């Protein structure tokens, strides 16, 4: 071991217990000054707990934390801040009704005679945002901006406080490929300037690209710390999951047949700005193919999907499924033709305070199978949800009666996928179906969607992740500023090419 000052932060033999479970069991993590250290593990492996210990949110039962070789006690986030430890949380800690600037300076405001003086702060934030390419609208309210921009706000918040040790808790989950590349560059820059970065992720590509060393956790236990250049993706993922993992999506050539979904000249108004978020979009999705709408977050995908699934109205154009015009149909009517895995599983996908079984019949409780003269058949629901739970391996504390809020993100998503795929509709609309999931769960979701395709379903996928777009889909449509600007065969296009279209640098002439 080198001299003590080699490590800026050391977490030695940390054990953190929750009632009945050791979330961290004798974990050691040593962060060198100026390095990017990745912390890898599945959901529930204990990464977030460990970082919460470092950030002062939890006190460990055993183990010590050292800063610059000296033992420190971190009892609250205030202590962490005083030690210049900053964290971007996975679930943003932003005040929705405040402006971006107000959120950034919150808790570190400059005042003049008791009044807020934002001028200096605005200048500093603007400089930071230009320096690192973290573009945000400082005066927009957080509730009105995209998830990606909220993330950038969080990063700026940390930079604004001149933190030395930066914890990124899955920062790329919501960013576009370009943004991820930019972020990687930023992280490297920060490390070069002497800042030390802890990077929590389960995305192997990013870890391989950006990190210097990797610490792998599994089920609360320490597995290994390795130099990134001495390892590879397959080895890391096997270490993380504890078994060999299928990293590539395995699928045969698509054999598309009849048209299922037909979208013609559809436009949708935006709710935030008084303009069209989706402009004159036309395309088809056929049986037996996965068509992906790719694009950077906020280019009209969400609005289009809302209009397609009935959560919102179209302002022009027609949508037909299997020849039925459903342009103006209700959500329920549309639900007869399509299954929908929504983008925001907490907002749209689940009633979090309901039990798992009640969520399983969210669309179907009025069907004859589950009710008799308006009285719910509880036995039928229990039996049905147990079937789905078994079939899709949805894990939860108490089975069908588990309150959905208490389940992990991956299993919540599995529950939604189980419910939607079991409805057996011709069209499956899947919006970012793997967002925030770990390798094992992603493998599962991808396999399910390919299986549906092979069974003759039409799959419309919306994804922000280029890897997923390229590996899962058969055909790719790029959406930019509300228009479809390009259509590609996924086998014949490169990530770079797609990136240019997504950024609006290239456009196809639109065919009639």
């Amino acid at each position: 071991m080198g001299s003590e000052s080699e490590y800026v932060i050391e977490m030695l033999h940390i054990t953190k217990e929750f009632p009945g479970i050791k979330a961290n069991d004798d974990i050691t993590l040593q962060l060198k000054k100026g390095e990017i250290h990745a912390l890898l593990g599945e959901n529930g492996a204990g990464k977030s707990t460990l970082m919460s210990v470092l950030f002062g949110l939890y006190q460990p039962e055993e183990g010590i934390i050292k800063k610059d070789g000296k033992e420190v006690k971190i009892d609250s986030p205030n202590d962490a801040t005083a030690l210049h430890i900053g964290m971007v949380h996975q679930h943003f800690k932003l005040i929705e009704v405040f402006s971006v600037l107000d959120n950034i300076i919150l808790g570190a405001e400059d005042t003049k005679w008791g009044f807020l003086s934002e001028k200096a702060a605005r200048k500093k934030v603007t400089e930071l945002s230009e320096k690192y390419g973290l573009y945000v609208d400082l005066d927009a309210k957080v509730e009105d901006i995209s998830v990606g921009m909220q993330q950038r706000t969080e990063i700026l918040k940390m930079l604004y406080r001149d933190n030395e040790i930066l914890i990124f808790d899955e920062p790329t989950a919501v960013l576009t490929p370009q943004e991820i590349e930019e972020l990687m560059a930023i992280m490297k820059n920060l490390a070069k300037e002497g800042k030390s970065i802890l990077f929590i992720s389960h995305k192997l590509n990013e870890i391989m690209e950006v990190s210097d060393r990797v610490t792998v956790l599994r089920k609360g236990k320490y597995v290994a710390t390795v130099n990134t250049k001495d390892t590879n993706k397959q080895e890391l993922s096997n270490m993380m999951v504890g078994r060999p993992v299928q990293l590539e999506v395995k699928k045969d050539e698509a054999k598309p047949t009849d048209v299922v979904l037909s979208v013609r000249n559809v436009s949708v108004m935006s709710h935030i700005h008084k303009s069209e978020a989706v402009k004159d979009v036309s395309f088809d999705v056929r049986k037996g193919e996965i068509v992906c709408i790719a694009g950077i977050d906020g280019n009209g995908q969400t609005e289009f999907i809302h209009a397609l699934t009935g959560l919102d109205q179209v302002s022009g154009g027609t949508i037909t499924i299997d020849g039925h015009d459903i342009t103006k149909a209700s959500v329920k009517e549309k639900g007869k033709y399509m299954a929908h895995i929504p983008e925001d599983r907490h907002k749209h996908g689940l009633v979090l305070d309901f039990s798992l079984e009640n969520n399983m019949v969210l669309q179907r409780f009025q069907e004859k199978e589950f009710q008799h003269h308006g009285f719910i058949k509880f036995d039928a629901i229990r039996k049905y949800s147990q079937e789905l739970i078994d079939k899709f391996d949805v894990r939860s504390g108490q089975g069908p009666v588990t309150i959905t809020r208490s389940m992990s993100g991956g299993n919540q998503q599995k529950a939604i996928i189980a419910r939607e795929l079991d409805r057996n509709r011709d069209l499956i609309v899947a919006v970012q179906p793997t967002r925030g999931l770990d390798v094992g769960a992603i493998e599962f979701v991808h396999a399910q969607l390919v299986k549906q395709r092979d069974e003759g379903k039409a799959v419309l996928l919306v994804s922000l992740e280029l890897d997923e777009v390229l590996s899962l889909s058969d055909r790719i449509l790029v959406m930019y500023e509300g228009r479809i600007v390009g259509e590609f065969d996924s086998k014949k296009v490169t990530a770079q090419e797609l990136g240019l279209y997504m950024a609006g640098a290239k456009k196809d002439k639109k065919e009639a």
Partner: protein
Amino acid sequence: MKENLKSFFKKDGVKSVLASLISILVGLIVGAIAVFLVGIFKDTIGVKGAWEGVRIIFAGILSTGRNVVGSLTWGYNAVNLGDMLFRATPLIMAGLSVSVAFKTGLFNIGAPGQYLMGTMTSLAIALSIPSDKVPTWIIWIIAFLAAMVAGALWGAIPGFVKAVFNINEVIACIMTNWIAANLVTWFFDGSVFCNQVEAGKTGYIYKTSYNGVATVKLGLDKVFKGSQVNGGIIIAIVIAVLVYIMMNKTTLGYQLKACGANRHAAKYAGIKDKRNIILSMGIAGALASAGGALYFLSGNTEFFWSTYQSLPATGFNGIPVALLALNNPIGVIFSGIFMAMLSTVGMQLTNLTAYNEYITDVIIGVIVYLSAFALFIRTWISTRKKEAVAKPSEDKEKEIQEEKTNERGNE
């Protein structure tokens, strides 16, 4: 055996009941302390009087007055118990009204207005249909049902503006409350129902017994001799059970709860969220106004409308009744009776001791206030129980860990 006991305490229903009982007990103890402190520092009461006050707080419902030597006597008090049940009737209905709306994610502070609409409609109909031509029991039923319809329509108004224009239901409810108060005053002021028979009375309208209409007694007047109790309490209990069935066993209740817990997800699943919000407020309105009807159709209650400048407290008391019962319709029966017991106890305190009626109201306020902590106490019980669970099996470990991570994230 011990295991059985443990799983018994794990049940949600048991937890809720336990939470409400603890809340009530804490409320009563704090109320008793307040009575004691007020008493010992007041010359007219003293330690002896304070001790009597404390005993009345806990058992005033069973006090039968004072004996010849001036000490308190206890026993079965039919008048107290009967009056308690009579007063509980509208409180249960108002509590049901608030709890149904709560379950749909709406705060029905409009119960007083709905209660007034029910009062006005039921009285007007009961007094205007000639009882020499129509049997009085039919008049009663028509008046009761019409009151529910009027309340449903009145309650649906805030529901409608909430669903369609997204106007906060609390604001709309407060507005409709005052509109109802003035509407009722205006209506009775120009009506022929003003009591002109009994000399010296202004601003009262006839009791429904003037027309021969009165709620059936169902034998309760024999059990509680000399009290005002009637079949209304039975009707309220039956309605509470029906509401319980509606909320927990039917697709309608499922929809209402889904809309309340997550309106977006309900909409996503094809549930008509707007329709359900209006419906929920309509049902809430019907329940509150049924409370008004049951109270004033009893035949021996007088409605005083003149200069009706304030809203009926019964409507507002529906809120603590619902909170204390954790919005469970069956629980509302008991919390409604508890609230009625407090007001009976308050009267006993005023009548039998030197405490004046205002301090009595303050103490009741303290008890109600603390009782409404039921939800907080329920959460406390749940977390305590969670910490006590034995070490889970291997494959459950990960789930629990995930749960923890998730909970933290959701904070």
